[in-house]
């Protein structure tokens, strides 16, 4: 009897769950009949303020510790719940501004050369729990950031933005180098008046310093919590490993984090820049499976979801779709120092590939746009007006907007000359690509076929090799020890959209994280001049950046092919602060509004 009752109960529960599931799915189909209006439509009702925004990640973040962030999802969360000295914030549609958040104002130049800078922290600065935040917190954070025992390796560093703090790196790597550098010798000093001073090895200007602090995840850590989580060897801390081991100070404060399930945050009442923030709460759900994410969106449990190419086929012309171009140009990087395949050292061979690439055709293979340049139109040249570098006269001057530099006859002639110069009867090229990326595989397969067809299958053999992403990065970087570590491979790097010069960072001779071994003095000199100029000197910067990019394109250490476009479904109840994507702000969710 008991068994029968149990079976009956189970059957009922299953039937109810099934019906509930069907209801969800049914709604999924039914929600296409939405009330008029939408996040991007003109008939959208005015947001009433407050409310909860429901977002989704496909995988959980690793940490809330700003010194250990590695991914864009880590930084999105940390920058939502952590305060910074200077913040990139939405200004008007498709324009941004850098505003002092916990800094009292712009950094003050102490010397005349731009090597010593003073940053004052707001006197009323507080953490979300109401405890005071001082300049000492920022100094302690920088000390821990460069700690020689913790050896943090965050995703973005100040060095990458041209801010080299004196002795910071020697201090950090002193154990590996066998040297001794005291913290007192590092160019970070607490000074009177709730401020600290930075001494740098290379001069910078104020806007460059602001941009660097706004682009890196330089969120202050709370000393008591940080020290309480430190192990006895002082080489590990559990700061930020759970929501209660983190001191919030951003626009929102973290209120819960269940691993692989959900991260929740609520509006921070002590945040200094309250204007423009209307949401009460943001919840991030962690849903690994794309089909489930889509169903949750359709049943109204999520406010946004990204669409795969296959999903995009089904959603066709759905007005809720937001198209978001990626900041990165997808390129085929060529190894110009490869000794085992010496034709790669020949500039004409590389140029032949550049002019032999039919980018318009390649762009048809997915949701993407053809590009014959490296700095995409996401990069903003003038933060105040929102002018993109690609829209400036300098940025347009060497771009072929009709054929995207596809010139088969020129390519064939260059190829013939390359073979003649190298004395080879034929050439070969192996292209590496990430095994998990379908879009990159498509591009490689297309280029393999089209290049062989253009130059002749008997004269050019292109082979493809899929490799795991970790192995791919190692192969790229191992060119320092083995110049022939790879011949070519797909690359697509994203930097700070607010500084077009940052896109060229990886290509300068002094870059530490180089994938492609391109070492050119002329290019590096132009790059150095461009980054040394203040952001406000728009035209001068544009000229230098354009010259540097044109020089690089002529040398052809890579072949730009396409710029991919992501598609995101946005619920009609959400109004986004702007309809573009920024590598630091991402979608600027803290400034979004929901209609309740």
């Amino acid at each position: 009897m008991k068994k029968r009752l149990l079976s009956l109960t189970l059957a009922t529960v299953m039937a109810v769950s099934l019906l509930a599931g069907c209801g969800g799915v049914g709604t999924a189909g039914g929600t296409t009949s939405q009330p008029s209006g939408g996040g991007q439509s003109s008939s959208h009702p005015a947001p009433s303020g407050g409310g909860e925004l429901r977002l989704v990640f496909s995988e959980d973040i690793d940490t809330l510790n700003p010194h250990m962030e590695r991914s864009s999802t880590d930084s999105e969360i940390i920058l939502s719940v952590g305060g910074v000295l200077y913040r990139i914030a939405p200004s008007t549609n498709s324009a941004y501004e850098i505003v002092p958040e916990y800094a009292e104002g712009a950094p003050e130049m102490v010397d005349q050369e731009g090597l010593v800078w003073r940053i004052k922290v707001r006197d009323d600065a507080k953490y979300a729990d109401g405890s005071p935040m001082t300049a000492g917190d920022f100094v302690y954070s920088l000390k821990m950031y460069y700690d020689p025992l913790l050896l943090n390796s965050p995703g973005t560093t100040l060095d990458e933005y041209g801010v080299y703090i004196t002795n910071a790196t020697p201090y950090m790597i002193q154990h590996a180098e066998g040297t001794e550098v005291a913290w007192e010798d590092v160019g970070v000093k607490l000074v009177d008046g709730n401020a600290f001073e930075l001494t740098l090895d290379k001069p910078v200007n104020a806007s460059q310093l602001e941009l660097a602090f706004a682009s890196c995840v330089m969120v202050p850590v709370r000393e008591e919590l940080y020290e309480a989580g430190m192990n006895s060897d002082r080489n590990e801390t559990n700061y930020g490993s759970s929501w209660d081991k983190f001191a919030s100070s951003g626009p929102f404060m973290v209120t819960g984090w269940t691993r692989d399930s959900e991260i929740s945050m609520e509006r921070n009442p002590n945040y200094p820049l309250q204007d423009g923030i209307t949401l009460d709460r943001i919840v991030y759900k962690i849903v690994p499976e794309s089909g489930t994410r889509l169903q949750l969106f359709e049943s109204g449990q999520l406010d946004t979801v990204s669409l795969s190419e296959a999903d995009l086929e089904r959603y066709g012309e759905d007005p809720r779709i937001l198209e978001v171009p990626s900041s990165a140009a997808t390129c085929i990087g060529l190894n110009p120092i490869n000794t085992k395949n010496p034709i790669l050292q020949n500039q004409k061979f590389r140029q032949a590939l550049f002019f032999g690439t039919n980018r318009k055709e390649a762009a048809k293979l997915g949701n993407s746009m053809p590009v014959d340049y490296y700095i995409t139109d996401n990069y903003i040249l003038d933060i105040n007006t929102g002018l993109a570098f690609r829209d400036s006269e300098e940025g347009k001057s060497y771009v072929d907007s009709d054929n995207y530099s596809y010139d088969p006859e020129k390519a064939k002639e260059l190829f013939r000359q390359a073979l003649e110069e190298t004395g080879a009867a034929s050439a070969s090229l192996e292209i590496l690509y990430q095994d998990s990326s379908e879009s990159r595989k498509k591009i490689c397969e297309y280029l393999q076929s089209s290049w062989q067809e253009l130059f002749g299958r008997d004269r050019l053999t292109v082979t493809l090799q899929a490799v795991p992403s970790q192995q791919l990065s190692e192969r790229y970087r191992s060119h320092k020890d083995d110049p022939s570590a790879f011949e070519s491979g797909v690359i697509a790097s994203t930097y700070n959209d607010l500084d077009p010069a940052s896109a060229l960072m990886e290509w300068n001779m002094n870059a530490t994280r180089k994938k492609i071994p391109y070492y050119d003095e002329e290019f590096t000199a132009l790059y150095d001049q461009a980054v040394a100029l203040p952001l406000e000197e728009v035209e001068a910067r544009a000229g230098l950046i354009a010259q540097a990019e044109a020089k690089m394109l002529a040398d052809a250490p890579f072949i730009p092919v396409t710029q991919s476009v992501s598609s995101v479904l946005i619920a009609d109840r959400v109004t986004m602060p702007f309809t573009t994507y920024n590598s630091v702000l991402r979608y600027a969710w803290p400034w979004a509004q929901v209609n309740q």
Partner: protein
Amino acid sequence: MTNSINGIPYESPRPAREDDFELLQLGADLKDAKFESPPIGFFKDATLRLAKNKAAVAALVIILVVSAMAVFGPMMTAYAFDQQFVDYQNMPPRIPLLAPLGIADGSRVLENRRADGLSDTEKYPEGCILKVMNRRTVNGVEMVDVKVDYYRYSGCEENFLLGSDYLGRDLWTRLWRGTRVSLFIAVFSVVTNVIIGVIYGSVAGYYGGKLDMVLMRVCEIIQSFPRVVVATLFIMFFGTGIFSIIMSLLISGWIQTARLVRAQFYRFKGREYVLAARTMGVRDRAIIFRHILPNSLGPIITTMMIAVPQAIFTESFLAYIGLGLKAPEPSIGVLLSEGQKVLLNFPYQSLFPGIVISALMISFNLFGNGLRDAMDPTLRGT
């Protein structure tokens, strides 16, 4: 003379005399029938019995047809397996003979299209719209699903019998080319495995003793390597491609054959004819390959036939999880792997490779079972 056994007396028989027996057959009409057909050998008998097994014969026909298509199929269209038509990606199948029945007629339903765009002839060329369905409003915009003649919609004048893939490559050509590659990998690896297994198993079984013990322990060690790990290691060192796949199939694939042959050798090596050959000074190699091994051929052939679908399956599995061949070379596993990524939108891209691999797997298994029954001596004459 009287004798007794256990106390029971009996008389000794008298010696036989010549007239005690009469040769009856000399004039008698014997009823034994003469053999009407010449004596049948083992393999001929097996063939006859196999021919009676309808399932096995049907399976053999399917294998032969698929193998023939693997050879000639890619030549039946004007397209090369890697020829791309970037403008005609993911075209649906269009088979002129079946099109009037509404099957494989080149039509496709485009979901979520703006109703106000249907009259745009640049987007929807005249006559391409077959049906408009499911009108609804999304965010104030009237949306519909449209069934279109996708060839006319795309302006495609090509004819893809089984449709095209994400690069506009003809799936008919790729399917049969892929079948050829899969069959090649399977047959090559199985034949190589059998050669290694027969030699290894013969030596272990014939000599026995410590050598056998060592050889079998080596087998056990090798068999403990996980296949996916082995495949991954080969791919790491040699890159993706046929070589890595075949090598990962060879690493442990021969062990089953080696064990089987070893068992057969244990069974036959003590037989009189082997002892006689040995007594007469026949060399070991001749005893192994001329006297014992032919007795094991039946089980070996059966094992081979069953190993072929296993190898096809393994190749497909490895390709499916991304450890497949170098692009653009197809195999059934590669096609299935690519097809499953767009299963919801373009199910035909998985359907046809699925049908071919299923047909091959079932056929090889049925044929293998038929061969096993046909070559089983205990079933001879049944």
